[in-house]
């Protein structure tokens, strides 16, 4: 079982590939507790695959992934039990259950893992909705009645339903307007200060990167490079260099 070594996610020798194409070539990565790690990389470098591998949705070809000391790469539901309560996952489009209202969606994890009264669940649902910036009248609506940005927020509210220690975010600010994205960054910071939240996020948003991330992991050519923004800006790799010092990177990081 878990010995507390201050590491939330430990990846060793991870190999992923599809149809003969290697996406991750023996990747090692540590995510420390209470840090915000952002994963960046070009299209098709396997950012989402990495996230899916960590939460046990994608079985890697080889390698070990431990979350809070528990192996998730060899997924079987029994050994993952309990982990699901400690993490929350926000999918790219929110992945709300379409047959349930927003409020019911947020209450699914609560029902699954706790025996809260309906009253308390409703109160906490109201809090989560407000935290993610959804209006009160969104609660009884069905996902089909929401805009893309609202779905994302509702998905985040569901990911936060149990106040997880570890939050996975797949492009959390894409599709949000800049003001909402700023609020989102502030929210992540605040949750992290009060809850000691560990965040693993896949993002392209350079502003978000600068505002929230402690360390950045760049996926490139099947390998991974980690470091702070300052470290990576000095990296000799042309893609990484371009990413942080190109016009957008420059504008965001020197703002």
């Amino acid at each position, binding site marked *: 079982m878990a010995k507390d070594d201050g590491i939330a996610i430990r990846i060793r020798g991870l190999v992923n590939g599809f149809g003969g194409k290697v996406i991750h070539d023996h990747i090692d990565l540590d995510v420390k507790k209470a840090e915000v790690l952002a994963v960046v990389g070009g299209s098709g470098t396997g950012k989402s695959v990495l996230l899916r591998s960590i939460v046990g949705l994608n079985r890697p070809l080889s390698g070990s992934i431990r979350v809070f000391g528990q192996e998730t790469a060899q997924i079987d539901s029994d050994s993952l039990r*309990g982990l699901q309560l400690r993490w929350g996952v926000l999918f790219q489009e929110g992945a709300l259950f379409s047959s349930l209202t927003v409020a019911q969606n947020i209450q699914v994890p609560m029902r699954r893992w706790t025996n809260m009264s309906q009253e308390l669940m409703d109160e906490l649902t109201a809090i989560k909705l407000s*935290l993610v910036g959804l209006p009160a009248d969104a609660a009884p609506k069905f996902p089909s009645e929401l805009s893309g940005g609202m779905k994302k927020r509702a998905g985040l509210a569901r990911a936060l339903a149990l*106040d997880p220690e570890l939050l996975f975010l797949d492009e959390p600010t894409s599709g949000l307007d800049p003001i909402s994205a700023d609020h989102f960054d502030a929210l992540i910071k605040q949750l992290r200060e009060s809850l000691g939240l560990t965040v693993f996020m896949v993002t392209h948003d350079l502003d978000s990167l600068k505002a929230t991330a402690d360390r950045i992991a760049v996926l490139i050519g099947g390998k991974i490079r980690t470091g702070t923004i300052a470290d990576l800006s000095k990296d000799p790799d042309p893609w990484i260099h371009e990413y942080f010092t190109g016009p957008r990177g420059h504008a965001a990081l020197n703002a």
Partner: protein
Amino acid sequence: MRNLPSPILVNSPATLRADATGSSLRLVAGGEWTVPEAPRMDTALRAIGFTGIREAEIDANAVTMLDSSGAWLFVRAAHEIQASGCRLVRFAVPERFRPLIEAISGIEVEGRGAMHPASPRFGRSVERLGRATVEVLRQGYDLVEFLGRVTVETGEAILAPRRELPLPAFFQQIEETGLTALPIVGLLAFLLGVVLTYQGADQLKRFGAEVYTIDFLAIGFMREIGGLVTAIIVAGRSGSAFTAQIGTMRVNEETDAMRTIGLNTTEILVVPRVLGLMIALPLLTFFADVVGIIGGMVMTYFDLGITFPAFLRELEGAITLKTLMVGLVKAPVFAFVIALVGCFEGMRVERNAASVGRLTTRSVVESIFLIIALDAGFSVLFSMLGI
């Protein structure tokens, strides 16, 4: 699906002590105020009454972990204390939890309106009935409108073929709806021929008229069964595919993209399907007729001992070209209805995946219903015309 209490380990369980001295109350909390402990602490807090209390104090300095559920429980207690008219003299939490408490207390939880949609009552079921009725009528109206549009476009495509008439799409539809349906239509027609022959022979034997099994089979199959069964199979196979294909394009905004480019969605998506199916279904029906009669021929040989040449001689006397045509003339009409309904429902898909499934089901049910209703209509018409 309520589950067992969480398997997570709580290092130091949450505690709550209420010390009442006279008219003042002191709530002392400690331990981990987190989600696993929230249900227990919720119950404990609700059990405390604030009536008759003038001064209250919340001391949460001994709390070691706090998440938003725990913070809410404290904030709620503070709200309740103030709402019951007593004074909250002290609200102490460790400094690191202060921002969270402040964030949570800034949220208005009560009076946010209904959290869940109202459950259906009688009044609402009447309302639903009304809405459904209006919906059905509106849909009928829309279908007629669509029928008109498709008729005009199809007519134009045939009479005045423009260069952009999608000929490849048209042939592709014939292949998809016709050629690839041959195995399933053939198999089912063959089996139906066997079954009908068996039943017919069984009854006619009693009158010593078993040779008329052939007439019964041939006329029954060509006039009714062949066309009907083929149409129903195709409705399930291709009508649903039309709805799903066009529906998915709607979800992906492909149809919107076509409109913005200036393409006519009816012409591109609907006309090839309608025309393709109107060619494919009569051919399939003819194929089903032939295979069904072959099925009957095999069965009569084994059941009644009628040889194939004898069967064919009897068949020649039983049917005329008119028998075949009565069955085949219905096929293009069925094809038109299947394609029309399939495309119509596809065009009605909203921008979510669930509606693709719902409308696909509806498309199949509607087109099968219309096929059988139309077939009944044809029977009446033919008997009035004495055909």
